[in-house]
Protein backbone atom coordinates (compact mmCIF):
# COMPACT_ATOMS: atom_id res chain seq x y z
CA UNK A 1 0.00 0.00 0.00
CA UNK A 2 1.31 3.44 -0.89
CA UNK A 3 2.48 5.41 2.07
CA UNK A 4 3.57 8.46 0.04
CA UNK A 5 3.04 11.62 2.04
CA UNK A 6 1.92 14.52 -0.19
CA UNK A 7 4.65 17.17 -0.18
CA UNK A 8 2.28 20.12 -0.53
CA UNK A 9 0.32 19.49 2.69
CA UNK A 10 0.92 20.29 6.34
CA UNK A 11 0.36 17.78 9.16
CA UNK A 12 -0.25 17.31 12.87
CA UNK A 13 1.19 14.76 15.27
CA UNK A 14 -2.37 13.37 15.54
CA UNK A 15 -2.24 12.31 11.87
CA UNK A 16 -4.37 15.02 10.34
CA UNK A 17 -3.41 16.75 7.11
CA UNK A 18 -4.16 20.40 6.32
CA UNK A 19 -4.24 22.22 3.00
CA UNK A 20 -5.09 25.81 2.08
CA UNK A 21 -8.45 25.69 0.29
CA UNK A 22 -10.00 28.31 -1.96
CA UNK A 23 -10.79 31.52 -0.08
CA UNK A 24 -8.12 30.93 2.55
CA UNK A 25 -9.90 28.40 4.75
CA UNK A 26 -7.94 25.31 5.78
CA UNK A 27 -9.20 21.94 4.61
CA UNK A 28 -8.55 19.11 7.09
CA UNK A 29 -8.52 15.34 6.74
CA UNK A 30 -6.80 12.31 8.21
CA UNK A 31 -3.68 10.81 6.67
CA UNK A 32 -3.24 7.56 4.81
CA UNK A 33 -1.36 6.27 7.85
CA UNK A 34 -4.32 7.11 10.12
CA UNK A 35 -7.01 5.60 7.90
CA UNK A 36 -4.97 2.42 7.53
CA UNK A 37 -4.58 2.14 11.30
CA UNK A 38 -8.31 2.70 11.89
CA UNK A 39 -9.56 0.19 9.32
CA UNK A 40 -12.94 0.48 7.60
CA UNK A 41 -14.63 3.67 8.78
CA UNK A 42 -18.38 3.31 9.26
CA UNK A 43 -19.45 6.57 10.89
CA UNK A 44 -18.22 10.16 11.08
CA UNK A 45 -19.38 12.88 13.43
CA UNK A 46 -18.22 16.38 12.50
CA UNK A 47 -18.96 19.88 13.81
CA UNK A 48 -21.47 21.96 11.87
CA UNK A 49 -20.48 25.05 9.92
CA UNK A 50 -20.25 27.98 12.32
CA UNK A 51 -18.84 25.90 15.19
CA UNK A 52 -15.80 27.26 16.96
CA UNK A 53 -12.88 24.86 17.31
CA UNK A 54 -9.74 25.11 19.35
CA UNK A 55 -6.32 23.87 18.28
CA UNK A 56 -5.61 20.49 19.86
CA UNK A 57 -9.17 20.04 21.13
CA UNK A 58 -11.69 17.52 19.82
CA UNK A 59 -13.41 18.49 16.59
CA UNK A 60 -15.44 15.37 15.85
CA UNK A 61 -14.81 11.66 15.70
CA UNK A 62 -14.52 8.79 13.25
CA UNK A 63 -15.65 5.28 14.11
CA UNK A 64 -14.56 1.97 12.69
CA UNK A 65 -16.40 -1.27 13.48
CA UNK A 66 -14.08 -1.80 16.41
CA UNK A 67 -13.25 1.59 17.84
CA UNK A 68 -13.74 5.32 17.88
CA UNK A 69 -11.06 7.98 17.33
CA UNK A 70 -11.24 11.67 17.98
CA UNK A 71 -10.37 14.25 15.38
CA UNK A 72 -8.32 17.12 16.81
CA UNK A 73 -8.54 20.58 15.33
CA UNK A 74 -5.13 21.43 13.84
CA UNK A 75 -5.76 25.15 14.36
CA UNK A 76 -8.18 27.38 16.28
CA UNK A 77 -10.94 28.99 14.27
CA UNK A 78 -14.44 28.59 12.89
CA UNK A 79 -15.74 25.64 10.87
CA UNK A 80 -16.88 26.93 7.47
CA UNK A 81 -17.81 23.61 5.83
CA UNK A 82 -17.96 19.91 6.52
CA UNK A 83 -17.86 17.08 4.02
CA UNK A 84 -21.53 16.09 3.83
CA UNK A 85 -20.76 13.17 1.50
CA UNK A 86 -19.25 11.30 4.46
CA UNK A 87 -22.66 10.89 6.10
CA UNK A 88 -23.60 8.39 3.39
CA UNK A 89 -20.12 7.26 2.36
CA UNK A 90 -17.71 7.30 5.30
CA UNK A 91 -15.58 4.82 3.33
CA UNK A 92 -14.35 7.79 1.23
CA UNK A 93 -11.90 8.40 4.09
CA UNK A 94 -10.41 4.96 3.48
CA UNK A 95 -10.43 5.08 -0.30
CA UNK A 96 -9.32 8.70 -0.83
CA UNK A 97 -8.04 10.17 2.45
CA UNK A 98 -6.31 13.19 0.84
CA UNK A 99 -9.11 13.91 -1.65
CA UNK A 100 -12.83 13.10 -1.43
CA UNK A 101 -12.36 11.86 2.12
CA UNK A 102 -11.67 15.33 3.57
CA UNK A 103 -13.46 16.17 6.83
CA UNK A 104 -13.93 19.89 7.52
CA UNK A 105 -12.77 23.35 6.46
CA UNK A 106 -11.73 25.81 9.15
CA UNK A 107 -11.28 29.56 8.91
CA UNK A 108 -8.21 30.01 11.14
CA UNK A 109 -8.30 32.64 13.88
CA UNK A 110 -4.61 33.24 13.30
CA UNK A 111 -3.51 33.03 9.64
CA UNK A 112 0.04 32.23 10.79
CA UNK A 113 -1.09 28.98 12.47
CA UNK A 114 -0.82 27.02 9.20
CA UNK A 115 2.87 27.75 8.91
CA UNK A 116 3.49 26.30 12.34
CA UNK A 117 2.18 22.84 11.41
CA UNK A 118 4.49 19.95 10.51
CA UNK A 119 5.75 19.80 6.95
CA UNK A 120 5.81 16.53 5.00
CA UNK A 121 9.39 15.71 6.00
CA UNK A 122 8.67 16.25 9.69
CA UNK A 123 5.51 14.14 9.50
CA UNK A 124 7.36 11.39 7.64
CA UNK A 125 9.90 11.31 10.44
CA UNK A 126 7.14 11.16 13.03
CA UNK A 127 5.42 8.11 11.55
CA UNK A 128 8.73 6.34 11.03
CA UNK A 129 9.30 6.63 14.76
CA UNK A 130 5.83 5.41 15.73
Amino acid at each position, binding site marked *: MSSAIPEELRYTAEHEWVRVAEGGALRVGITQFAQDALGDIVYVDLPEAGSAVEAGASAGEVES*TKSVSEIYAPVSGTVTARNEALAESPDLINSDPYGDGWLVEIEPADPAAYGELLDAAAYQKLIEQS
Partner: protein
Amino acid sequence: MTDELLRSPLHDRHLALGAKFAPFGGWEMPLEYAGGGVLKEHAAVRESVGVFDVSHLGKATVTGPGAADFINRCLTNDLGRIAPGKAQYTLCCDETGGVVDDLIAYLHGPEHVFLIPNAANTTEVVRRLQAAAPEGVTIVNEHADYAVLAVQGPRSAELLAKLGLPTDHDYMSFEVAKLGSAELTVCRTGYTGEHGYELVVPSAQAGEVWDALFGTDIEVRAAGLAARDTLRTEMGYPLHGQDLSMEISPVQARAGWAVGWKKPEFWGREALVAEKAAPQRTLWGLLATDRGIPRAHMTVLRPGTDEAIGEVTSGTFSPTKKIGIALALISTASGLTEGDEVELDVRGRRSVAKIVKPPFVNPSVR
Protein backbone atom coordinates in the same frame (compact mmCIF):
# COMPACT_ATOMS: atom_id res chain seq x y z
CA MET B 1 4.71 -9.17 26.88
CA THR B 2 4.41 -8.43 23.16
CA ASP B 3 7.48 -10.48 22.29
CA GLU B 4 6.01 -13.49 24.05
CA LEU B 5 2.95 -13.76 21.81
CA LEU B 6 2.44 -17.16 20.23
CA ARG B 7 2.02 -17.49 16.49
CA SER B 8 -0.07 -19.67 14.26
CA PRO B 9 1.70 -22.19 11.99
CA LEU B 10 0.12 -20.10 9.19
CA HIS B 11 1.78 -16.84 10.27
CA ASP B 12 3.95 -16.58 7.15
CA ARG B 13 0.93 -16.97 4.91
CA HIS B 14 -0.84 -14.14 6.73
CA LEU B 15 2.24 -11.96 6.31
CA ALA B 16 2.24 -12.73 2.58
CA LEU B 17 -1.42 -11.65 2.42
CA GLY B 18 -0.59 -8.33 4.08
CA ALA B 19 -2.42 -9.09 7.30
CA LYS B 20 -2.68 -6.57 10.08
CA PHE B 21 -2.12 -8.45 13.33
CA ALA B 22 -3.53 -8.04 16.82
CA PRO B 23 -2.81 -9.77 20.12
CA PHE B 24 -5.65 -12.04 21.16
CA GLY B 25 -5.59 -14.38 24.14
CA GLY B 26 -1.79 -14.46 24.11
CA TRP B 27 -1.57 -15.08 20.35
CA GLU B 28 -0.66 -12.75 17.51
CA MET B 29 -3.46 -13.34 15.01
CA PRO B 30 -4.67 -11.67 11.79
CA LEU B 31 -7.15 -8.86 12.46
CA GLU B 32 -7.82 -8.12 8.79
CA TYR B 33 -6.07 -8.49 5.45
CA ALA B 34 -4.75 -6.04 2.86
CA GLY B 35 -7.23 -5.62 0.02
CA GLY B 36 -9.94 -6.86 2.35
CA GLY B 37 -10.83 -5.11 5.55
CA VAL B 38 -13.51 -6.00 8.04
CA LEU B 39 -16.46 -4.98 5.83
CA LYS B 40 -15.37 -6.96 2.75
CA GLU B 41 -14.39 -9.96 4.85
CA HIS B 42 -17.72 -9.85 6.71
CA ALA B 43 -19.63 -9.64 3.43
CA ALA B 44 -17.66 -12.55 1.92
CA VAL B 45 -18.75 -14.81 4.78
CA ARG B 46 -22.40 -13.71 4.58
CA GLU B 47 -22.55 -13.94 0.78
CA SER B 48 -19.93 -16.45 -0.39
CA VAL B 49 -17.13 -18.01 1.67
CA GLY B 50 -14.37 -16.85 3.98
CA VAL B 51 -11.56 -18.73 5.72
CA PHE B 52 -10.41 -17.78 9.21
CA ASP B 53 -7.26 -19.02 10.90
CA VAL B 54 -8.44 -19.60 14.46
CA SER B 55 -5.46 -21.67 15.54
CA HIS B 56 -5.29 -19.62 18.73
CA LEU B 57 -8.25 -21.67 19.99
CA GLY B 58 -7.23 -24.24 22.58
CA LYS B 59 -7.22 -27.98 22.04
CA ALA B 60 -7.22 -30.63 24.73
CA THR B 61 -7.80 -34.37 24.63
CA VAL B 62 -9.49 -36.24 27.46
CA THR B 63 -9.03 -40.00 27.36
CA GLY B 64 -9.34 -43.04 29.55
CA PRO B 65 -12.09 -45.21 31.02
CA GLY B 66 -15.05 -43.00 31.91
CA ALA B 67 -13.58 -39.91 30.18
CA ALA B 68 -16.95 -38.72 28.83
CA ASP B 69 -18.70 -39.39 32.16
CA PHE B 70 -15.99 -37.40 33.92
CA ILE B 71 -16.42 -34.42 31.56
CA ASN B 72 -20.17 -34.65 32.07
CA ARG B 73 -19.70 -34.31 35.83
CA CYS B 74 -17.62 -31.13 35.32
CA LEU B 75 -18.98 -29.12 32.38
CA THR B 76 -22.52 -27.73 32.31
CA ASN B 77 -24.14 -29.19 29.19
CA ASP B 78 -25.39 -32.78 29.13
CA LEU B 79 -23.08 -34.97 27.04
CA GLY B 80 -25.70 -37.68 27.44
CA ARG B 81 -27.86 -35.75 24.97
CA ILE B 82 -25.44 -36.36 22.09
CA ALA B 83 -24.05 -39.45 20.39
CA PRO B 84 -20.41 -40.09 19.43
CA GLY B 85 -19.59 -38.06 16.33
CA LYS B 86 -21.42 -35.01 17.66
CA ALA B 87 -20.16 -31.81 19.19
CA GLN B 88 -21.73 -29.71 21.92
CA TYR B 89 -21.42 -26.14 23.18
CA THR B 90 -20.79 -26.27 26.92
CA LEU B 91 -19.44 -24.22 29.82
CA CYS B 92 -16.79 -24.67 32.44
CA CYS B 93 -18.09 -22.89 35.55
CA ASP B 94 -16.65 -22.48 39.01
CA GLU B 95 -18.55 -23.18 42.20
CA THR B 96 -20.05 -19.66 42.26
CA GLY B 97 -21.55 -20.15 38.78
CA GLY B 98 -18.99 -17.81 37.18
CA VAL B 99 -17.83 -18.90 33.75
CA VAL B 100 -14.18 -20.00 33.56
CA ASP B 101 -14.68 -20.63 29.84
CA ASP B 102 -17.16 -21.57 27.15
CA LEU B 103 -16.01 -24.36 24.88
CA ILE B 104 -16.96 -26.98 22.32
CA ALA B 105 -16.76 -30.66 23.34
CA TYR B 106 -16.35 -33.25 20.58
CA LEU B 107 -17.59 -36.63 21.72
CA HIS B 108 -15.53 -39.34 20.00
CA GLY B 109 -16.73 -42.04 22.40
CA PRO B 110 -17.13 -42.87 26.08
CA GLU B 111 -13.36 -42.90 26.52
CA HIS B 112 -12.41 -39.96 24.29
CA VAL B 113 -13.53 -36.33 24.31
CA PHE B 114 -11.77 -33.50 22.44
CA LEU B 115 -12.19 -29.98 23.80
CA ILE B 116 -11.81 -26.58 22.10
CA PRO B 117 -11.57 -23.94 24.84
CA ASN B 118 -10.75 -20.27 24.25
CA ALA B 119 -7.08 -19.37 23.77
CA ALA B 120 -6.69 -17.40 26.98
CA ASN B 121 -8.49 -19.98 29.14
CA THR B 122 -7.07 -23.26 27.91
CA THR B 123 -4.41 -23.59 30.59
CA GLU B 124 -6.95 -22.93 33.34
CA VAL B 125 -9.58 -25.32 31.97
CA VAL B 126 -6.98 -28.06 31.60
CA ARG B 127 -5.64 -27.36 35.10
CA ARG B 128 -9.11 -27.64 36.65
CA LEU B 129 -9.91 -30.85 34.78
CA GLN B 130 -6.54 -32.41 35.63
CA ALA B 131 -7.01 -31.55 39.30
CA ALA B 132 -10.41 -33.27 39.35
CA ALA B 133 -9.71 -36.24 37.07
CA PRO B 134 -10.11 -39.71 38.50
CA GLU B 135 -7.41 -42.35 38.20
CA GLY B 136 -7.07 -43.43 34.57
CA VAL B 137 -8.53 -40.30 32.95
CA THR B 138 -5.87 -38.15 31.30
CA ILE B 139 -6.20 -34.57 30.05
CA VAL B 140 -3.52 -33.42 27.63
CA ASN B 141 -3.14 -29.79 26.58
CA GLU B 142 -2.49 -29.90 22.82
CA HIS B 143 -2.80 -26.17 22.19
CA ALA B 144 0.01 -25.83 19.65
CA ASP B 145 -0.35 -29.29 18.12
CA TYR B 146 -3.30 -28.41 15.90
CA ALA B 147 -4.33 -25.53 13.69
CA VAL B 148 -8.03 -24.68 13.32
CA LEU B 149 -9.37 -23.27 10.06
CA ALA B 150 -12.95 -21.99 10.01
CA VAL B 151 -14.47 -22.21 6.52
CA GLN B 152 -17.69 -20.22 6.74
CA GLY B 153 -20.34 -19.03 4.34
CA PRO B 154 -23.00 -20.21 1.88
CA ARG B 155 -20.36 -21.61 -0.52
CA SER B 156 -18.36 -23.42 2.19
CA ALA B 157 -19.82 -26.85 1.35
CA GLU B 158 -19.09 -26.39 -2.36
CA LEU B 159 -15.49 -25.44 -1.52
CA LEU B 160 -14.86 -28.44 0.72
CA ALA B 161 -16.57 -30.79 -1.74
CA LYS B 162 -14.08 -29.70 -4.42
CA LEU B 163 -11.31 -30.90 -2.12
CA GLY B 164 -13.06 -34.22 -1.57
CA LEU B 165 -13.90 -33.45 2.05
CA PRO B 166 -17.17 -34.58 3.66
CA THR B 167 -19.83 -31.86 3.80
CA ASP B 168 -23.20 -33.54 4.26
CA HIS B 169 -23.03 -34.27 7.98
CA ASP B 170 -25.43 -32.53 10.37
CA TYR B 171 -24.88 -29.24 12.15
CA MET B 172 -22.75 -29.84 15.29
CA SER B 173 -21.36 -33.15 14.06
CA PHE B 174 -17.90 -34.07 12.81
CA GLU B 175 -16.11 -36.51 10.53
CA VAL B 176 -12.48 -37.52 10.21
CA ALA B 177 -11.11 -37.15 6.67
CA LYS B 178 -7.88 -36.95 4.66
CA LEU B 179 -6.61 -34.11 2.51
CA GLY B 180 -3.22 -34.72 0.92
CA SER B 181 -0.97 -35.86 3.74
CA ALA B 182 -3.20 -34.35 6.43
CA GLU B 183 -5.63 -36.27 8.58
CA LEU B 184 -8.14 -33.71 9.76
CA THR B 185 -11.45 -33.40 11.57
CA VAL B 186 -14.22 -31.66 9.64
CA CYS B 187 -16.70 -30.18 12.12
CA ARG B 188 -20.01 -28.58 11.16
CA THR B 189 -19.51 -25.75 13.62
CA GLY B 190 -18.72 -22.06 13.51
CA TYR B 191 -19.05 -18.64 15.11
CA THR B 192 -20.58 -16.68 12.24
CA GLY B 193 -24.20 -17.82 11.91
CA GLU B 194 -23.51 -19.11 8.39
CA HIS B 195 -23.36 -22.65 7.10
CA GLY B 196 -19.76 -23.58 7.82
CA TYR B 197 -17.06 -25.95 8.93
CA GLU B 198 -14.15 -25.88 11.33
CA LEU B 199 -11.16 -27.98 10.28
CA VAL B 200 -8.89 -29.26 13.03
CA VAL B 201 -5.56 -29.97 11.32
CA PRO B 202 -2.20 -31.12 12.75
CA SER B 203 0.00 -28.00 12.80
CA ALA B 204 2.58 -29.54 10.48
CA GLN B 205 -0.02 -29.85 7.70
CA ALA B 206 -1.81 -26.53 8.30
CA GLY B 207 -0.08 -24.80 5.39
CA GLU B 208 -0.93 -27.59 2.98
CA VAL B 209 -4.63 -27.42 3.93
CA TRP B 210 -4.70 -23.59 3.81
CA ASP B 211 -3.16 -23.64 0.32
CA ALA B 212 -5.69 -26.24 -0.86
CA LEU B 213 -8.59 -24.08 0.35
CA PHE B 214 -7.23 -21.14 -1.66
CA GLY B 215 -6.32 -23.26 -4.66
CA THR B 216 -9.72 -24.07 -6.21
CA ASP B 217 -11.62 -22.02 -8.79
CA ILE B 218 -13.86 -20.65 -6.00
CA GLU B 219 -12.90 -17.17 -4.91
CA VAL B 220 -12.11 -17.48 -1.22
CA ARG B 221 -11.42 -14.52 1.03
CA ALA B 222 -9.14 -14.74 4.04
CA ALA B 223 -11.02 -13.24 6.99
CA GLY B 224 -9.59 -11.94 10.23
CA LEU B 225 -10.65 -11.59 13.84
CA ALA B 226 -12.29 -8.20 13.20
CA ALA B 227 -14.85 -9.78 10.86
CA ARG B 228 -15.21 -12.76 13.18
CA ASP B 229 -16.26 -10.34 15.91
CA THR B 230 -18.83 -8.42 13.83
CA LEU B 231 -20.26 -11.71 12.50
CA ARG B 232 -20.65 -13.26 15.94
CA THR B 233 -22.11 -10.07 17.41
CA GLU B 234 -24.80 -10.03 14.68
CA MET B 235 -25.69 -13.55 15.85
CA GLY B 236 -25.72 -12.58 19.52
CA TYR B 237 -23.10 -15.26 20.21
CA PRO B 238 -21.32 -14.42 23.48
CA LEU B 239 -17.58 -13.80 23.65
CA HIS B 240 -15.97 -15.04 26.83
CA GLY B 241 -14.42 -12.17 28.75
CA GLN B 242 -17.09 -9.76 27.51
CA ASP B 243 -20.57 -11.32 27.49
CA LEU B 244 -19.74 -14.33 29.66
CA SER B 245 -17.15 -14.21 32.43
CA MET B 246 -16.43 -15.10 36.02
CA GLU B 247 -18.83 -12.24 36.87
CA ILE B 248 -21.46 -13.01 34.19
CA SER B 249 -23.09 -16.39 34.76
CA PRO B 250 -24.82 -18.48 32.08
CA VAL B 251 -28.15 -17.66 33.73
CA GLN B 252 -27.51 -13.94 33.23
CA ALA B 253 -26.06 -14.44 29.76
CA ARG B 254 -29.09 -16.45 28.61
CA ALA B 255 -26.87 -19.49 28.05
CA GLY B 256 -29.06 -21.70 30.21
CA TRP B 257 -29.75 -23.83 27.13
CA ALA B 258 -26.13 -25.03 27.47
CA VAL B 259 -26.72 -26.20 31.03
CA GLY B 260 -27.94 -29.74 31.74
CA TRP B 261 -30.25 -28.68 34.55
CA LYS B 262 -31.39 -32.25 35.17
CA LYS B 263 -27.87 -33.54 35.68
CA PRO B 264 -27.12 -34.41 39.31
CA GLU B 265 -23.65 -32.93 39.13
CA PHE B 266 -21.62 -30.28 37.31
CA TRP B 267 -19.37 -27.45 38.48
CA GLY B 268 -21.44 -24.53 39.74
CA ARG B 269 -24.71 -26.46 39.78
CA GLU B 270 -25.88 -25.32 43.21
CA ALA B 271 -25.19 -21.63 42.56
CA LEU B 272 -26.73 -21.67 39.09
CA VAL B 273 -29.91 -23.48 40.18
CA ALA B 274 -30.34 -20.89 42.94
CA GLU B 275 -29.71 -17.99 40.57
CA LYS B 276 -32.06 -19.35 37.91
CA ALA B 277 -35.05 -18.63 40.13
CA ALA B 278 -34.40 -14.90 40.20
CA PRO B 279 -31.51 -13.54 38.09
CA GLN B 280 -30.50 -9.96 38.92
CA ARG B 281 -29.76 -9.10 35.30
CA THR B 282 -30.19 -10.57 31.83
CA LEU B 283 -28.30 -10.27 28.57
CA TRP B 284 -30.36 -8.62 25.81
CA GLY B 285 -29.67 -7.28 22.36
CA LEU B 286 -29.76 -3.54 21.72
CA LEU B 287 -30.54 -2.17 18.28
CA ALA B 288 -29.59 1.48 17.77
CA THR B 289 -32.33 3.79 16.47
CA ASP B 290 -29.86 6.53 15.50
CA ARG B 291 -26.26 6.80 14.30
CA GLY B 292 -24.69 6.07 17.68
CA ILE B 293 -22.52 2.94 17.87
CA PRO B 294 -22.66 1.16 21.22
CA ARG B 295 -19.32 0.04 22.67
CA ALA B 296 -18.43 -2.37 25.47
CA HIS B 297 -18.76 -0.88 28.99
CA MET B 298 -21.09 1.95 27.98
CA THR B 299 -23.76 2.60 30.59
CA VAL B 300 -27.38 1.79 29.71
CA LEU B 301 -29.84 4.37 31.09
CA ARG B 302 -33.56 4.56 31.64
CA PRO B 303 -34.85 6.96 28.95
CA GLY B 304 -34.93 10.58 29.99
CA THR B 305 -33.13 9.90 33.28
CA ASP B 306 -29.63 9.36 34.65
CA GLU B 307 -30.66 6.05 36.20
CA ALA B 308 -28.14 3.37 35.20
CA ILE B 309 -29.97 0.12 34.48
CA GLY B 310 -27.27 -1.85 32.74
CA GLU B 311 -24.04 -2.06 30.81
CA VAL B 312 -23.08 -2.85 27.23
CA THR B 313 -20.91 -6.00 27.08
CA SER B 314 -20.25 -6.04 23.30
CA GLY B 315 -21.09 -3.38 20.75
CA THR B 316 -20.26 -2.70 17.14
CA PHE B 317 -21.56 -1.38 13.85
CA SER B 318 -23.48 -4.17 12.11
CA PRO B 319 -22.12 -4.40 8.56
CA THR B 320 -25.26 -6.30 7.50
CA LYS B 321 -27.86 -4.00 9.07
CA LYS B 322 -25.74 -0.83 8.75
CA ILE B 323 -26.58 0.29 12.27
CA GLY B 324 -25.21 -0.03 15.78
CA ILE B 325 -25.91 -3.27 17.65
CA ALA B 326 -24.96 -4.46 21.10
CA LEU B 327 -25.29 -7.08 23.76
CA ALA B 328 -26.05 -5.58 27.15
CA LEU B 329 -26.82 -6.74 30.66
CA ILE B 330 -30.08 -5.12 31.82
CA SER B 331 -31.11 -5.24 35.47
CA THR B 332 -34.25 -7.23 36.18
CA ALA B 333 -35.38 -4.62 38.71
CA SER B 334 -35.56 -2.00 35.93
CA GLY B 335 -38.67 -3.75 34.62
CA LEU B 336 -37.51 -2.99 31.08
CA THR B 337 -37.81 -5.77 28.54
CA GLU B 338 -38.02 -6.66 24.86
CA GLY B 339 -39.43 -3.81 22.77
CA ASP B 340 -38.64 -1.10 25.35
CA GLU B 341 -36.32 1.78 24.59
CA VAL B 342 -33.18 2.59 26.54
CA GLU B 343 -30.56 5.30 26.23
CA LEU B 344 -26.82 4.94 25.95
CA ASP B 345 -24.29 7.45 27.12
CA VAL B 346 -22.18 7.75 23.96
CA ARG B 347 -19.29 9.92 25.16
CA GLY B 348 -21.60 12.50 26.73
CA ARG B 349 -24.39 12.33 24.15
CA ARG B 350 -27.56 10.28 24.46
CA SER B 351 -28.25 7.62 21.85
CA VAL B 352 -31.56 5.73 21.82
CA ALA B 353 -31.64 1.97 21.34
CA LYS B 354 -34.35 -0.64 21.46
CA ILE B 355 -34.18 -3.85 23.52
CA VAL B 356 -34.42 -6.86 21.22
CA LYS B 357 -33.83 -10.58 21.40
CA PRO B 358 -30.78 -11.59 19.30
CA PRO B 359 -29.91 -12.68 16.67
CA PHE B 360 -29.84 -9.39 14.76
CA VAL B 361 -29.44 -11.27 11.47
CA ASN B 362 -31.18 -14.57 10.71
CA PRO B 363 -28.76 -17.48 11.06
CA SER B 364 -28.35 -20.08 8.33
CA VAL B 365 -26.12 -22.54 10.17
CA ARG B 366 -28.08 -25.57 9.04
